[in-house]
């Protein structure tokens, strides 16, 4: 065997961690780690993953090693997910060192187009404002609020702040901004707020959780489900408080 057992373990967990962070299903993560280790001809592999923890033990005839990773932060990034997936397939075929793997993962992480993401957020908010029955002026304001939200998002550095508090804050900002804007222009506040709320709603977390439960990962499924429930609650209370302050529309 060309590489040490501990090096193989570390590099496979690096890939698994990157996958959890970009919002993959749990069964896919476990499968990937197992497949990478099999690619390096490791005999016995035990992997366990939930949405906040990844732990694996590799064993051959002489020794056994265990390593774990704590994952505190994850969001949906499909480009990263897809590229890491390709990378894992690549690793299985031609075995590379850990240094190389880390270099490639870092390269994938840097590769993101902020302007395009901002633009995506703006057109998503705007088009859902139209979808629920707003007019052109509403579209403009909901796009502006989405832009401000994006600035807050990049400025706040979500890694250091609890997701629930962030959601509460963001929905409060949305409500207040919409109410302030309506003092100067004639707007349908409800349509603007709904369009912007769609960006924050944890519907996606709910769907991934159902995915996980059906595939048999009940622990991470229920984790994500309860997480989504509380996110929805914090979102709703943020909106409610802004409505109370702004005079109930």
């Amino acid at each position, binding site marked *: 065997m060309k590489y040490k057992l501990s090096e193989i373990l570390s590099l496979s967990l690096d890939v698994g961690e990157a996958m959890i962070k970009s*919002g*993959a*299903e749990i069964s*896919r993560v476990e499968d990937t780690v197992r497949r990478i280790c099999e690619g390096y001809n490791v005999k016995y592999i035990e992997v366990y993953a939930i949405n906040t923890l990844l732990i694996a033990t590799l064993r051959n005839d002489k020794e056994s090693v265990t390593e774990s990773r704590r994952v505190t932060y994850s969001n*949906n*990034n*499909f*480009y*990263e*997910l*897809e590229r890491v*997936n390709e990378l894992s397939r690549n690793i299985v075929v031609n075995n590379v060192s850990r240094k190389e793997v880390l270099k490639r993962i870092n390269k994938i992480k840097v590769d*993101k*187009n902020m302007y*395009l*993401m901002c*633009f*995506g*957020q*703006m*057109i*998503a*908010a*705007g*088009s*859902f404002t*139209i*979808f*629920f029955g707003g007019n052109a002026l509403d579209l403009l304001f909901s796009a502006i609020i989405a832009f401000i939200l994006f600035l807050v998002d990049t400025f706040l550095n979500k890694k250091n702040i609890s997701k629930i508090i962030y959601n509460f804050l963001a929905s409060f900002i949305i409500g207040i901004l919409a109410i302030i804007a309506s003092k100067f222009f004639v707007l349908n506040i*409800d349509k603007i*707020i*709904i369009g912007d*709320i*769609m*960006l924050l*709603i944890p*519907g*996606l977390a*709910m*769907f*991934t959780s*159902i*995915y996980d*439960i*059906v*595939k048999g990962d009940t622990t991470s499924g229920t984790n994500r489900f309860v997480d989504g429930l509380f996110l*929805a609650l914090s*979102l*709703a209370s943020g*909106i*409610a408080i802004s*409505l*109370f302050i702004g005079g*109930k*529309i």
Partner: protein
Amino acid sequence: MIIKLLSASIGALGFGLLFNTKKSRLPFVFLGGFINIVSYEITYMYTNNIFLSSAVCASVIYIYSNIIARIIKCPSVIFVLTGLIPVVPGAALFYMMQNIVLSNNYLAIKYGLSALYTVLGIAFGIALFSMFLNIFRNTHNSLKK
């Protein structure tokens, strides 16, 4: 109506951009949002039932994204998540909160229930078809061996 359908699909596309999807996948994301909202509206027109229509549109989008993922070789989760965006109950959640603030209990419960039905319907649709797919794959693999 046309405006509604188009804006829903553009919304799905916007989420595709926001989640940093590869550019070559974006047309399929747009199509997914369109198929989703069309199937929802058609079912809702005939049955007038929120639970049933969200279950139908979730299963349609699940099948669609698995087919597309097989064809262009990428994770199917991309199309499931972006395609389901147009039926996420944002409006119901907002109106529920607004009516709680205005203390209209009856309306608040009505909107809250409709949000709950939508989430349950989507969960049901996805769970049902991913179970089918799992069973199909398992039998397929065991037959191969």
